């Protein structure tokens, strides 16, 4: 049996996701575009109660009546369920179809997911890391086995996906890569690695630190003098350390649908008891992970100490309990400034990790224009379109050191590159942002030179060339790139700060010349042009080794 486990992963697969979906009537679009999504509550599947569609409609009608002007109620709570609604997008026209997809989810109470039984948690904390890798292997096998289900979910959720089709589909394809055990091991060993030791060793137990030389406190010296032979033998201490798992709350964001998955994976890799809050607009990844874990390893300690749920941000009944002292050891917050700020203010006694709203830029020196303009523009466009320009690392502003005519040629080449993207993967621009782009074009950036790709008069993508400072509120992140021309690239340095996550640069000589100063100003990633979106296991995130922040480092 043990050998079988090694062969297949953590345990033999004897149930599957499709069976669970069928049994509980989950994850398919029923009548009236209603999909039922489950929660994972400490290893137990919770399916939503049955609800009448008319009751859903009435609840949203009521919410609309009391909503402030301009607000779009996307969440309602009925007696035993909560419902999210998202606009359906016509994939041919990439415009709102005028209908909604409803996700019906169960409810939960905070007490059900909080972890206070430390002897039970220690079973998870002391699970060998190898078993975590085997769990991931099993999960991967389940996802391969359930390809038909995944395909149907990919096709179902594309109707509300705000990302273009290709991005959406590749997101599903990337699941296997995200949970690849080899990458996971590298990630843990590098991220938690200290004292020349692999990180997974610290996660599994107390690791002696051979080179560590303990230093005495004054009291030891005084004691040695006063007590002679009875003095504490501090020299004999053999220091050790452990990366202790923690109880984690992850409040995730949906600008890239992989984020809830990545955040949950960090909890799993650190062998931590965790509650994951799915974001509005990306509740499916959490549901998939829940079902995958239940199919792959229902009795695994990770599964039994993991909860994947949803509540609308700001709901006091949930958040007061979650942000109370000692409810969690770590709170991870991704997302909007007000969400991050709100959590920081309320969870005063818990260590809060924030993945703040940030943005990327590109810096292109004069020498780069000696090469092919089309290649330069293609690389720069790729940096801008990470997660269709919605990722925190996507380049929003290109600072270019160029003459006016060069800058214009560059903007035009960029426009052509974007047009090619538009043809290959038509863009979806939310109606709100259609309005925002009009505002920017006719308002704060009226003085810019605009190079717009449109279809039937509707914005698809575009470039605006300016030669002055601009307010960041002009950034719309909808395949709209702001190119700011400069006489000297160094003039862009004052605009780099900790809000800038990534700077992609060309040519190499410019990167080498400026990268230390850019890094000193708070930027986290300084990469070659065209590489903003590339990642590797064990890399830092927003200036942190994230796993290292999620564990509690203990000294022995």
């Amino acid at each position: 049996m043990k050998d079988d486990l090694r062969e297949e992963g953590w345990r033999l697969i004897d149930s599957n996701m499709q069976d669970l979906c069928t049994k509980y009537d989950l994850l398919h679009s029923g009548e009236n575009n209603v999909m039922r999504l489950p929660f994972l509550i400490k290893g137990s599947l919770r399916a939503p109660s049955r609800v009448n569609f008319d009751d859903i409609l009435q609840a949203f009608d009521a919410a609309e009546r009391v909503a402030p002007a301009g607000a779009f109620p996307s969440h309602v709570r009925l007696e035993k369920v909560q419902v999210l609604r998202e606009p359906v997008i016509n994939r041919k026209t990439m415009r709102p179809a005028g209908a909604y997809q409803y996700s019906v989810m169960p409810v939960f109470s905070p007490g059900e997911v909080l972890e206070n039984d430390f002897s039970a948690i220690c079973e998870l904390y002391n699970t060998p890391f190898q078993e975590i890798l085997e769990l991931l292997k099993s999960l991967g096998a389940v996802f391969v086995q359930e390809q038909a289900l995944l395909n149907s979910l990919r096709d179902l959720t594309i109707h509300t996906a705000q990302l273009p089709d290709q991005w959406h589909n590749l997101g599903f394809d990337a699941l296997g890569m995200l949970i690849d055990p080899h990458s996971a091991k590298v990630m843990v060993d590098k991220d938690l690695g200290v004292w020349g030791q692999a990180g997974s060793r610290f996660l599994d137990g107390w690791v002696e630190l051979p080179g560590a030389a303990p230093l005495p406190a004054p009291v030891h010296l005084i004691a040695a003098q006063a007590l002679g032979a009875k003095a504490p033998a501090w020299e004999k201490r053999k220091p050790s350390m452990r990366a202790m798992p923690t109880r984690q709350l992850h409040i995730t964001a949906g600008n890239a649908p992989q984020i809830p998955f990545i955040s949950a994976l960090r909890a799993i890799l650190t062998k931590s008891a965790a509650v994951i809050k799915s974001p509005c607009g990306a509740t499916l990844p959490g549901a998939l992970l829940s079902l995958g874990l239940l199919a792959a390893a229902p009795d695994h300690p990770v599964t039994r100490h993991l909860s994947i749920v949803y509540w609308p941000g700001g709901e006091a009944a949930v958040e007061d309990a979650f942000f109370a002292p000692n409810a969690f050891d770590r709170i991870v917050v991704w997302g909007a400034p007000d969400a991050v700020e709100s959590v920081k203010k309320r969870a005063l006694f818990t260590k809060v990790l924030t993945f703040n709203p940030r943005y990327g830029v590109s810096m292109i020196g004069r020498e780069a224009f000696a090469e092919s303009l089309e290649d330069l523009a293609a690389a720069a466009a790729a940096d801008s379109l990470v997660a269709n320009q919605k990722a925190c690392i996507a380049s929003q502003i290109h600072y270019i050191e160029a003459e006016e005519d060069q800058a214009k040629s560059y903007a035009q080449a960029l426009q052509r590159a974007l047009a090619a993207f538009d043809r290959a993967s038509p863009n979806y621009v939310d109606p709100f942002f259609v309005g925002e782009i009009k505002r920017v074009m006719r308002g704060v950036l009226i003085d810019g030179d605009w190079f717009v790709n449109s279809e039937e008069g509707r914005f698809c993508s575009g470039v605006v060339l300016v030669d002055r400072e601009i307010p960041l509120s002009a950034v719309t992140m909808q395949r709209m790139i702001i190119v700011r021309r400069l006489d000297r690239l160094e003039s862009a340095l004052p605009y780099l700060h900790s809000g800038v996550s990534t700077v992609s640069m060309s040519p190499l000589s410019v990167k080498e010349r400026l990268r230390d100063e850019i890094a000193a100003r708070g930027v986290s990633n300084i990469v070659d042009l065209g590489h903003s979106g590339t990642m590797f296991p064990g890399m830092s995130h927003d200036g942190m080794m994230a796993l290292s922040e999620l564990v509690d480092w203990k000294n022995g």
Partner: protein
Amino acid sequence: MTAHPDQALKQAQDGLKKIMVQWAATKTCDQDKALKLREQAASANYLRYRRNIPYFAKVCSMAGMNGDNPGLDQIIEHCMIPDDIFKSYPQGFLDDRDFRGMNRWLARVGDVRPSKASGEARNMDQWLDLLEKEGIHLVFSSGTSGNMSFVPRDESTWRHFLKNSLLYTPMAAADQGVIPSWKKLALKLLCQNIEPDSLLSLADRYGRLIFRDFDGYFCNFSGGAQGIQLVGQELAKYCRNAFFLYDAPLSPMAVRGVIRGAAAPEEQAVIDAFLNTTVHDKKANYHRMLSALEKSSKRGRKAIIFGTPYLLLEICQEVKAHKLNLRLKKGSAVFFGGGWKSFDGNRIPEEELVGLIGESLGIERNFIAEGYSMTEIQGLMLRCPEGRYHVPPHFETVILDPELRPMDGDDVTGTLGIIDPFAESYPGFLITGDHVRRVNEGCPCGRSGPAIISIARSPGREIKGCGGIMAKINA
């Protein structure tokens, strides 16, 4: 259109003024005629703007609007301008005190041609003063990010800005009982029998007769060209005595500097003075005002108090905390403006404030009025006792969907757009930052025409991911 655009505009404006006065006196007006005049004014202004305002010409060009007579629908679809345009100057101009640069920007955003002399100004306050002397009136608003907006008005637009509301607000005040009935009757007779411009001349000369029973208390600065300050300053001219909470002009340099920091020692001094007045001496100023109010009360004089809900709330709380016995004479009134948000962004509880005003100042609910306006328009919308902000007939309001396309209907909610026929020196086809519900039906108060029921600042969707990037940063 056959007439010269300037003549056509003047003709339409004169017609609309008459309709404003009629609407004030009778609560109703010929809406079809008003619409025709607004269309005539919009067509004339379209041509004037396109000829004289480079940025407007650019908007038209980007939209492919090359014809000379596009019609109101086309203007609404393609030529509406967001109010952000008035902050489209490079912030570096103000940081570097490059007022020549600011003048170049003004000449692009508006139909004004500042002189070289104003470009030599040493600081922002002086720049505004020099422009004022040249007949260019810059009205500013602060902006939460310190990115101030500047709306350039020539003499004609400035007069419309200051005077248009006088054509209908006194009658609306009279309707609420603020003015004695005999004065109301006299006012009504004047409205029905003399030309609007003559009415305004009379208001200039004898306007104080209407409000001479009142001592005016203004919870703002006694000078400075910021929207809400200007309303207070203008209203003050008609009161017997005027008392300002801050007896100093509001410095735009201080307004910007408080948010963005001082660029020079001279600026720091102005900021310090501003903070002393509004923060350090705040309570002392409140008590100075309250003590003056007490004197008015003892002399049996009525008071009219004007300010933002936030300041009035604080003042009432101060009265209550110190148990002051301030029972103002019956007929005293409160006039709000400037929105219902507090400094921390929360909405002031309206019912609580109205109750507190009654409790602490003795002012009855029907003597509490409110106006809704913005820096960029020539006029204000008064809220009636039924809670509706009535749109005066010279404004063409447009409700825009999220894509900024116009929506039809007698009960629609969306972004408010306003076509202002009296904006002559800058594009008056405006997209505001307000989300409103507009109805078009008879109001129980008796006033006809469209009205705005609710006003919110921005859509309240749950923000996802990195969407809400830092609005206060420049790049």
